[in-house]
């Protein structure tokens, strides 16, 4: 399992377009991927879970992936969410 802390740098938070984009990225990987905000665990392939988690600009979250392509998955999401 790979984990990585990242500060959300999308100005509108992970709502609408960015939320949907996270799913598009996550779906490219076989690994199970979760986002953690506080004690909330969010499946990165579930767009409604991401939306309901109300993740905002400058929130600190943890990306966590488990599977054959876990390194690549975390890297791709970190790049998108943190920039």
């Amino acid at each position, binding site marked *: 399992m790979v984990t990585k802390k990242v500060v959300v740098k999308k*100005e*509108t938070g992970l*709502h*609408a*377009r960015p*939320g*949907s984009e996270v*799913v*598009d990225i996550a*779906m490219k990987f076989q690994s199970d991927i979760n986002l953690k905000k506080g004690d909330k665990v969010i*499946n990165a*392939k*579930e*767009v*409604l879970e991401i*939306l*309901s988690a*109300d993740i*905002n*600009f*400058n929130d600190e979250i943890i990306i966590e992936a488990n599977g054959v392509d876990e390194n690549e998955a975390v890297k791709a999401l970190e790049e998108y969410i943190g920039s």
Partner: protein
Amino acid sequence: MELLGIKVGNGLGLGKCLFVDTKLPNLNQETATSLEEEVIKVNNAIDEAIKDYEDIIASLDDEDLKSLTEFNKNVLISPSIKKDITNIINDKKCYGDLAIDIYFNNKIKQLENLDNNYLKERAKDVKDIRHKVLSKYYGIVEFNPDNLKEDVILVSHEMTANVLLTDNIEHIKGIVSELGGKTSHIGILTTSLGIPSIFGIDIKNLKNDELLFIDGNKGIIENELSEERIKEIKEKIATELALAKELDDIKEARTLDNYLFEVSANTGDLTELERIDEIPLDGIGLFRTEFLYLNKTTPPDEDYLFEVYKSFATKLNGKQMIIRTLDIGGDKKCPYIDIGEEANPFLGYRAIRYCLDHKDFFKTSLKAILRASAFGNIAIMYPMISSIEELRQANLILEEAKQDLRDNKISFKEDIKVGIMVEIPAVAAMADMMIEEVDFFSIGTNDLVQYTTAVDRGNTKISKLYEWFNPGVIRLIKNAIDVTKNYDDKFVGMCGEMAADPLGIILLVGLGLDEFSVNINTVKKTKKYISLLNKKETEEFVKTLLNLKTVKEIEDKLNKFANEKYGKYY
């Protein structure tokens, strides 16, 4: 008959009324005969809906529509959706439609329960998706915009954004919905696509197939049109189209005698950030900070505000950005700001009045603006100032905010410009005293007219009295403009609908307004109108209006002048 609603998308349209609500059968509450069959039917319905969305995505050019459709698709390709609905079918031994409904209702409730208006609006998108999957399950053919052959105005109790997911939108001349708001997806889409749209209309008054005229600039729907009226409307639309065509090349608001006016935009909506490069605006004349506060359960922190201001200021690349401090209260409520019950909210505890009482809260908001001023041409504006004392008190807090930043060695623009909204008649009357202590005025006509004429525009019995060409209103505006002319380094702008009104523009050019701040969608149009005028001549003309005693006389004269100067564009 004329129906007044909430204007959302600008523009004019004429087309046949087409109700698009597809009614679904009642949910089957009985025990299902074959659970396996229901699971298969549901899975097929989901797959068909996904395929529809994929086809739409492939056919679309518009980025906003594309991203909405991708969101819808992503909801359905969720790894758990089929499993979850299958579980509901097996648990309840129910038919697929009920299971689909239960599944989506849970999701909708989760979003609606959040204290975030933006996410509440997204719940409506999920309702659209539920509608689509259920339609597929029942084998009902939904309204399909691809098949439209004539011009229509789509009417619905609660319009879904699905109706716009097509590359065949040229036949959609307008959108009318009973429910919904400016920030709903359909609202945002019609604005960016340039389709006239009006919400809050009682659709019982409309009949399928009758010809409708939609005036998205005014928020009015007209039906029962006479032949003569139809002819008039067609001319009006042709004029608007002719104007729109020439707007593409518009860059500046330079009058025929070579005077340059500034036309900037009113914004505050993060979704408009991307459009700043596309529109030839000279700055942001009014950045409404409310939106950053309203959609939250706790006050936004300084860093967040700073980042938002900075991103706008950076994008403006040196053009001026006037940030108005929080204008809360009145009709704008916020969960963590306790205004208390008031008999007259518009005469109550709002804007600067609240902020001056909550010094730390106010200081935080000022610090965010000051920090951003290191990254662009930012100015500060206080709303709802009614006296010199309030202005001075606000400036004292601003000075403390500056000192805090200096102590922490954080950079900001030391000589940042500070101005006030002129929207309370007392301030307009004492403008000569006020201007001594500020760098600029921005005349807020929406409130100034309401307070000066003592008219609530929403009250249909008296709304006719809400009139910006009331001579009393004109005198206040003139006074606020005149006093700034004694200073070379001070300016006066206007943010409010009057600044984009073709007749208003004549009056304001003639009175010598420096800056017109208008809705981002009307920047080009405002520039065009100004560029058709001769400043010196307009000034002389406006002098002849100043002693007219009635609105009618003033408007008639303005109309005649507008016909001469604007010609085919009016």
